[in-house]
């Protein structure tokens, strides 16, 4: 575990892998997850790379797996996650997997096609059966109707040949069929209209729904019989039936034939049912047998594909036997990586070892911060704003303390702090169990990911609440208040006849003489000027903490300059910045502390007004009236003028010194290079002059190769450097003032929080407490829940989120702008577990 103070030292390495050992070595590195590969073939598209066939095979396997997954899901078989993640498979296992998947896919397809055919046959037979059962009733009805109409026939026609007789006498034809139930009305109407009422439709609904073989849905159908006379009507009827997608069936006219047919159909239906159920059973059994392996197979295929993607990034040696690649890795992980490579070589049975060779490069290395589960969230907060440059001071370890601290200044209520702490504690204690149940809920994931920071925020808030003496908007009196009304000044008579009285601390008249030892005196809760007093106090501590954090930021920039051996920055940026900040805001802090310590209540009429004094310092204005703006220590005028002068001197120092020194450094370097050239070539050129930068750079072009390890000097433009420094100066100086004022949000939010808490208590819970007797009891029981829910919703969630955001802003802007460059990129190693996690979300 490296240090979090700066990012890890990275090494750019070249990797030589033998072609046989390549796959095994890369899969070992993938399990290790410590190496970031560089793409050596960025200008090749995916079809031109070496291992494109293997990748294609993997994608084909994935397609088959997806198909099988869909079939399994259709049968609603659960697919459990494998207990442990399988290791990356050997190349020969890939062929095995391919054949297995192909066999399974073929089998599934066959079974599905057969099932569809069987279902279609089943449907036909079922419909025919319904027609046959209902046909008898239709024909009977028809006969009855006809016999009623033709009364002159005299006798009822015999059942057995009733229909036949009828048909012969009237030369009626008929068709029987089945159609969707919802189409019957339109069907009937169309038949009536188109055949001009000369056809005769009888229909009956089928009670059981039938399954459509193609879609698998269940539909309701009806049986119908149409009687017509003549060939033309027959043709029309048939066309209309086609249009309505009604299936027509041959229905025999005699009852005997119908009975035989029905019996035959019944046996056929039973046979078909048996076959169908057996084939579905078989399908189900096959799916169940592979359901357990599905996820493991998926992971294996993904691993194979990932390894081939990485292999595609390598270059192939001329002899076609070696793969050469480049990678980034942490310096202290090199031995582990070499061990992994050796394991890979052994696994593949190759005899030639792989070589990891460190190389020098001018590229910027990636930033790699080794974090554990506790520091991960703080590092991610810093990285969200900008990833630290390589080996820059990492703000994350300081954030672990300053973030919850500034949050607690804005949130300061012990009761809410306890609630927050408990909630986070619950999440932390049940961590392992909660991590296994992967949730899709974004909000829950955010809260769970930040459980450690919420834990710290809650803990610090408990402390801040004790300092502000604010627990659910009430104060605790643990040690005895420092204020006590003097019995001689406050008789019963005085107290009875005055609504408000002012306690006077001068000369210990209403003051015990010693303050409340820890936190805010509880008497302030009941005083009318509580907010006025707390405002002054909270504003001053906000300024003190804010300026301290800014000082700390400037000191961190010193650490950066020292590490990168940038002495120009130390003299031209750090010193003027430090002086500027100290002279103005350091002095302000000293004044605040002085006012707190040296001024007591007897001097309160003429207590120095610090803000006015600061303004007067800048305006060099020292009035004698009013006494709060007058001088309050000897030599104040000269000392403050001196500080002002010092601060003003820092501005041009910050502005001009650095560009000038850089320009001189650059010219000196040019001269040095030219001298080296002259000595090397053994000739002197008379056209060289120190200002001719373009000439010298032209001459240097030819000598680029002879200066290895010395980067070609960019064109140094004094104008550009000056503008850059100008921006930096203005940003810093104006930023000092605006950021100091910005820290006042620590006061503003804590005021808002305290007021909200008090209002919630007064408006919701006090209503219950103010009722006496049994109504009070019921009211307390009923009103506690809404008070609790509103506390959680408004004060914990809304205010907590708000304070979190403001603390974040204070860190990102006010603190980090003093030293942080944030121009790096994250180290993104090749890791199997990350690939599997990412694709499991799809």
């Amino acid at each position, binding site marked *: 575990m490296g240090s979090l103070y700066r990012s890890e030292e990275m090494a750019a390495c070249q990797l030589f892998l033998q072609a046989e050992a390549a796959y095994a070595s890369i899969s070992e590195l993938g399990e290790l997850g410590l190496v970031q590969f560089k793409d050596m073939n960025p200008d090749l598209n995916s079809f031109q790379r070496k291992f494109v066939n293997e990748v294609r095979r993997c994608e084909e396997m994935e397609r088959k797996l997806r198909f099988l997954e869909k079939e399994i899901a259709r049968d609603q078989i659960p697919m459990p996650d494998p207990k442990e993640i399988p290791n990356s498979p050997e190349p020969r296992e890939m062929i095995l997997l391919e054949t297995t998947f192909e066999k399974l896919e073929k089998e599934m397809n066959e079974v599905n096609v057969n099932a569809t055919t069987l279902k279609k046959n089943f449907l036909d037979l079922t419909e025919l059966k319904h027609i046959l059962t209902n046909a008898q009733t239709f024909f009977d009805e028809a006969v009855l109707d006809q016999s009623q109409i033709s009364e002159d026939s005299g006798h009822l026609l015999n059942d057995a040949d009733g229909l036949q007789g009828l048909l012969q006498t009237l030369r009626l034809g008929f068709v029987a069929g089945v159609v969707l139930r919802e189409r019957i009305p339109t069907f009937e109407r169309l038949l009536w209209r188109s055949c001009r009422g000369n056809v005769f439709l009888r229909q009956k609904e089928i009670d059981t729904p039938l399954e459509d073989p193609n879609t698998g849905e269940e539909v309701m159908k009806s049986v119908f019989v149409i009687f017509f006379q003549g060939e033309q009507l027959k043709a029309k009827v048939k066309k209309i039936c086609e249009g309505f997608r009604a299936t027509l069936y041959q229905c025999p006219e005699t009852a005997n034939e119908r009975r035989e047919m029905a019996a035959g159909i019944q046996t056929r239906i039973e046979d078909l049912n048996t076959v169908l159920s057996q084939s579905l059973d078989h399908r189900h059994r096959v799916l169940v047998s592979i359901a357990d392996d599905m996820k493991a197979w998926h992971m294996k295929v993904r691993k194979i594909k990932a390894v081939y993607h990485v292999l595609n990034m390598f270059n192939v040696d001329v002899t076609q036997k070696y793969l050469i690649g480049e990678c980034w890795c942490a310096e202290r992980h090199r031995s582990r990586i070499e061990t992994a490579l050796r394991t890979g070589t052994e696994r593949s049975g190759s005899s030639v070892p792989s070589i990891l060779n460190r190389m020098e490069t001018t590229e910027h290395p990636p930033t790699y911060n080794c974090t554990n589960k506790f520091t991960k969230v703080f590092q991610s907060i810093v990285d969200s704003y900008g990833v630290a440059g390589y080996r820059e001071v990492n703000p994350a370890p300081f954030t672990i303390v300053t973030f919850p601290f500034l949050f607690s200044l804005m949130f300061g209520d012990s009761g809410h702090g306890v609630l927050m702490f408990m909630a986070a504690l619950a999440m932390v204690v049940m961590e392992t169990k909660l991590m296994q149940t992967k949730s899709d809920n974004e909000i829950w994931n955010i809260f769970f990911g930040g459980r450690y920071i919420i834990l710290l925020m809650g803990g610090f808030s408990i402390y801040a609440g004790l300092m502000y003496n604010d627990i659910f908007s009430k104060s605790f009196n643990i040690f005895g208040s420092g204020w006590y009304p003097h019995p001689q000044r406050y008789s019963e008579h005085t107290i009875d006849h005055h609504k408000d009285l002012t306690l006077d601390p001068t000369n210990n008249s209403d003051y015990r003489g010693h303050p409340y030892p820890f936190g805010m005196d509880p008497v302030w809760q009941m005083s009318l000027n509580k907010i006025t007093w707390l405002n002054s106090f909270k504003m001053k501590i906000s300024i003190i903490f804010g300026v301290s954090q800014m000082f700390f930021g400037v000191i961190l920039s010193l650490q950066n300059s020292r590490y990168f051996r940038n002495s120009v920055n130390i003299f031209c940026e750090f010193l003027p910045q430090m002086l500027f900040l100290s002279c103005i805001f350091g002095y302000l802090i000293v004044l605040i502390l002085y006012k707190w310590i040296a001024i007591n209540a007897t001097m309160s009429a003429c207590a120095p007004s610090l803000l006015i004094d600061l303004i007067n310092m800048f305006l060099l204005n020292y009035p004698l009236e009013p006494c709060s703006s007058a001088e309050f220590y000897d030599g104040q005028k000269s000392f403050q003028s001196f500080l002002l002068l010092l601060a003003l001197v820092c501005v041009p120092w910050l502005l001009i010194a650095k560009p000038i020194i850089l320009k001189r450094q650059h010219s000196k370097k040019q001269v040095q290079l030219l001298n080296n050239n002259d000595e090397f070539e053994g000739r002197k050129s008379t056209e060289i002059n120190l200002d001719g930068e373009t000439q010298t750079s032209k001459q240097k072009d030819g000598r680029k190769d002879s200066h290895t390890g010395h980067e070609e000097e960019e064109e140094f433009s004094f104008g550009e450097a000056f503008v850059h420094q100008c921006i930096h100066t203005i940003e810093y100086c104006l930023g000092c003032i605006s950021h100091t004022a910005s820290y006042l949000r620590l006061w503003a939010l804590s005021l808002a929080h305290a007021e909200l808490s008090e209002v919630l208590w007064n408006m919701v819970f006090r209503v219950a407490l103010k009722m006496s007797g049994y109504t009070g009891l019921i009211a307390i029981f009923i009103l*506690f829940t809404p008070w609790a829910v509103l506390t959680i919703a408004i004060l914990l969630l809304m205010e907590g989120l708000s304070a979190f955001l403001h603390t974040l802003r204070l860190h990102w802007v006010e603190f980090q702008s003093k030293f942080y460059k944030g121009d790096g990129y994250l180290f993104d190693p090749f890791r199997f577990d990350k690939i599997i996690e990412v694709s499991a979300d799809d």
Partner: protein
Amino acid sequence: MTVPCCGPKCSAFCAIISFWGIIMLALLGIFFYIEAPALAEDLPIDEDVWAAGNYNYTYVSDLYKQVAVNCWIATGLYGATFIFSCIMLKINLRSSYSSS
């Protein structure tokens, strides 16, 4: 009782709120009982009755005790709610375990 009348989330929520209610109302009752001045503004003081009693302190003291007893009875009620919601939670867990 096999059919829960609250779902799993509802019963968990009720359990947590009841637990908080028990602790907080018990402490509040104690603070009212020891006559903490911070809670003086929450008392159901009737100005006329107090003025009639010549602003003596026993009136306020009695009110303190009364509100304390109210809080403690409410604690007991929330205890009952807590037990009820815990039972609901157990029933919910059992039914979801058996159905899965």
